[in-house]
């Protein structure tokens, strides 16, 4: 069953209808505010009654999110929201289910459930707020913090190699993989719409600035002075261009991506055209993950939909088996179940 859409007769939902009476407890200036606003803007466009929407989260700053959405919601335990939404969606395919998580919640303590929900492909939307730090526990490095990161728990620098969430999701056979950022509301709204429209598990990584414990982690992608040089907005069917005046692009030399200047006798026609249904190329694009703080030549960081495919959803296949059993055997009769096949009588 598809999530029920709003009866056209009913008054249209507005973003104000999604605001709760709870005081928001995120630190002033936190990137979460922008994400909440964009979600509250996009949801009314979907035409789903708010009683049919559920937001589920784990633990962490981002996981406070459900308290601020006037829908059904659950603030669960660390890393397990993925498993909770799996059970919810498996039993209630009529609901529009959203999961809010963070880099620690989804990729560290909840890493196992994260990869399994992606392969099972429940029709839910996962929003991963990646701030590359543990905020709620006051500033330890996270599984996405860069090598050498100095934090309270790593005074001499982190020796952990970080996860690349996009590559991880691709590796787990996710059917929708995208990235956006808190400071680009237009792009974020576009990605939220696409995630909502995708049938299957939509994985949207959102770069989110933690202005208290990891301020400026994504500055290079968000600040005017560097954004155009350092980001690559990939759009389906369009060449991969970037730079202050779109003067740069990516070419594929075999399987090797090459950054080229369009001024050197090359035109956009020579560039790699993004195809979000091409798994191999999406894998290459997802690997554009150099540490931007290193000054040597590197690839720009891609944003947009890396990859999408249509694959059956777990809850539909599960229901199909129930329907098949029902049509083959008829509705279960409790008396026949209790008696079994072999009985005897004692007089």
């Amino acid at each position, binding site marked *: 069953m598809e999530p029920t859409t709003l009866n056209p007769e009913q008054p249209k939902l507005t973003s104000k209808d999604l605001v*709760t009476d*709870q005081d928001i407890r995120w630190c002033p200036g936190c990137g979460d505010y922008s994400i909440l606003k964009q979600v509250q803007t996009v949801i009314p466009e979907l035409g789903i*009654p*708010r*009683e*049919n*929407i*559920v937001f*589920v989260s784990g633990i962490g700053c981002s996981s406070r999110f*459900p*308290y601020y*959405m*006037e*829908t*059904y*919601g*659950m*603030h*669960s*335990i660390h890393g*397990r929201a*993925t*498993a*909770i*939404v*799996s*059970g*919810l*969606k*498996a*039993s*209630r395919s*009529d*609901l529009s289910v959203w999961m809010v998580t963070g880099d620690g919640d989804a990729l560290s303590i909840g890493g*196992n*459930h994260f990869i*399994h929900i992606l392969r099972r492909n429940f029709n839910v939307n996962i929003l991963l707020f990646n701030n590359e730090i543990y905020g709620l526990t006051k500033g330890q490095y996270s599984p996405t913090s860069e090598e050498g990161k100095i934090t309270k728990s790593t005074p001499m620098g982190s020796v952990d190699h970080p996860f690349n969430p996009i590559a991880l999701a691709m590796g787990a056979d996710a059917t929708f993989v995208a990235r956006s950022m808190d400071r680009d509301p237009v792009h974020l709204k576009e990605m939220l719409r696409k995630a909502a429209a995708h049938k299957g598990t939509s994985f949207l990584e959102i770069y989110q600035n933690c202005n208290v414990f990891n301020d400026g982690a994504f500055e290079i992608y968000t600040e005017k002075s560097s954004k155009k040089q350092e980001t690559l907005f990939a759009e389906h069917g369009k060449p991969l261009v970037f730079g202050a005046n779109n003067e740069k692009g990516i070419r594929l030399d075999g399987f090797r991506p090459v950054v080229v200047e369009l001024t050197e006798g090359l035109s956009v026609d020579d560039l790699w055209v993004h195809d979000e249904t091409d798994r191999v190329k999406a894998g290459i694009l997802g690997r554009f993950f150099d540490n931007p703080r290193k000054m040597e030549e590197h690839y720009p960081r891609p944003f947009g939909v890396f990859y999408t495919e249509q694959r059956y959803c777990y809850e539909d296949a*599960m229901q199909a*088996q*129930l329907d*098949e*059993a*029902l049509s083959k*055997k*008829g*509705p*279960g*009769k*409790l*008396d026949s*179940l*209790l*008696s*079994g096949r*072999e*009985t*005897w*009588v*004692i*007089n």
Partner: protein
Amino acid sequence: MMEKNTDILSQVIIKFAGDSGDGMQLTGTQFTNTAALFGNDLSTFPDFPAEIRAPQGTLAGVSGYQLHFGSVNIYSPGDTCDVLVVMNAAALKANLRHLKQGGTIIANSDGFDPKNLRLANFADGKNPIEDGSLDKYRLITIDVTKMTRTALAESGLGTKEIDRAKNMFVLGFLYWMYNRSLDNSIKFLEEKFSKKKEILDANIKVLKAGYHFGDTSETFTTRYEVNPAPMPPGIYRNIMGNQGTAMGLIAASQKSGLPLFYGTYPITPASDILHELAKHKNFGVKTFQAEDEIAAICSVIGAAFGGSLGVTASSGPGIALKGEAMGLALMLELPLLIINVQRGGPSTGLPTKTEQSDLMQALYGRNGEAPMPVVAASSPADCFEMVFEACRIAIEFMTPVIFLSDGYIANGAEPWRFPLASSLPEIKVSFAKEKNGDRYLPYKRDEKLSRPWALPGTKGLEHRIGGLEKQHETGNISYEPENHEFMVRMREAKTEKVADYIPLQTIDNGTAKGKLLVLGWGSTYGAIKTAVVQARAEGYDVSHAHLKYIKPFPKNLGELLYNYEKILIPEMNTGQLIKIIRDKYLVPAIGLNKIQGLPFSAGEIRNKITELFN
């Protein structure tokens, strides 16, 4: 053919033992089903190694199946066996101590060749079936392998396939010995091998060969008859504990009208519940094999939030992993059932052996003060009844409930006078449809201290719940000191409130006042029952009460206990229930503890009873 005599026996205990690849579980189950259909009362105890196929012929690889059947009431699989069937030397070595003095050994002589003797650690050149060391028993040796190969010489099957039918020869021989019809097993084989005609024919041929061997061989002059048992009139079936649990869950789903969602992760000895439930999708049952124990319970929490009857099952190690999520379910106050089919611990412990050592874990094994109702089944058939009760409590009180079973009753079998579906009580469910205040108050309580259940999809009742401490009634996050204390006490009071809605404790056997009460819980029921019946017959003033509701206890328990001079509490642990009983009722209860991965024998309890009277 020579004349054969028939002796009538009131009860017999047979133990089938062989290599884990010898098909002893199947042989035992087949004999059990035939005995049950015949009308005998019975109780069984499968005893298998943790390894699927331990090295052939070794002691580690011995798999056993004990069956106690009779024309009298049977409460336990019995202490020592009358007949020991051994397919090899290791099976003899591992089980001889369980055979009565003068009991019968049926040995497959081919399993006592030098290689098997060496693997079973018998001294060089020593063969127990030839050296007279078994003279105090009645020893019957049959070369089962040779007989089977001869019977199937023309079958065209390979030696490996032929040898696999050996167990059918033994089964056929025992059917002859106990005067049983082959029909039930032939019917079973026809279904099992419906698509493999040559294997089916071979098995039936060997089964009959075993039967005819008894009939024609001059060695065997006596057959035995065990008449049907005097059981209450009705229709019976055979039931195993895990099967009963699975059926109880489906019954609770039907009687509550809630779809059953069963999220679990495979673990011994709980997995058979999953296997059983997965067969019944036409009852609307959804089974979800999650990626781990934590995901299993969390998926169930999600399903319960959506309005399903959410159930998860595991054994001790898995329950440990589920602990945090159990606490969440408690805070959310959602109905949920957690099944623990206990096994020997700690850690990985004894996966295939039984123990009652997770009672403290069930009562206290979570962070913070996280009380939840705990019930325990006392026999395979009781699994049905108590799991149904557990579901009722979970739904009526909006709480997670723990149901305790163990490896012994999970895999054991007994006859069951199953109920009619119409005789089972309805479980009342009422979903919130309207606001219960100016706004919806998710934690506003009713007379049971239970909160309303508003499902996603219900207009106007949108609300958020979570694991953080919440304000009374509104459910809003609250760190207020007084509110926290109030809520902690409220959750405890709610759990205790269940006592108003469960039956009072009864005496199973004996008198309401007396010298000694044996107080048990869980799977020790059969052994205690047998021991107390025997002791009372000999004039001892001893009674038996068996607890099924452990959190909360039935309201009259204290009063009941004060009527006895002494209280004996047998447990398959170092003494867990006893701590709670002493703490709550301040009675000087005496413990009897066995921690060997094996159930009590009635004799062990009997001895303790006698000792307490001396």
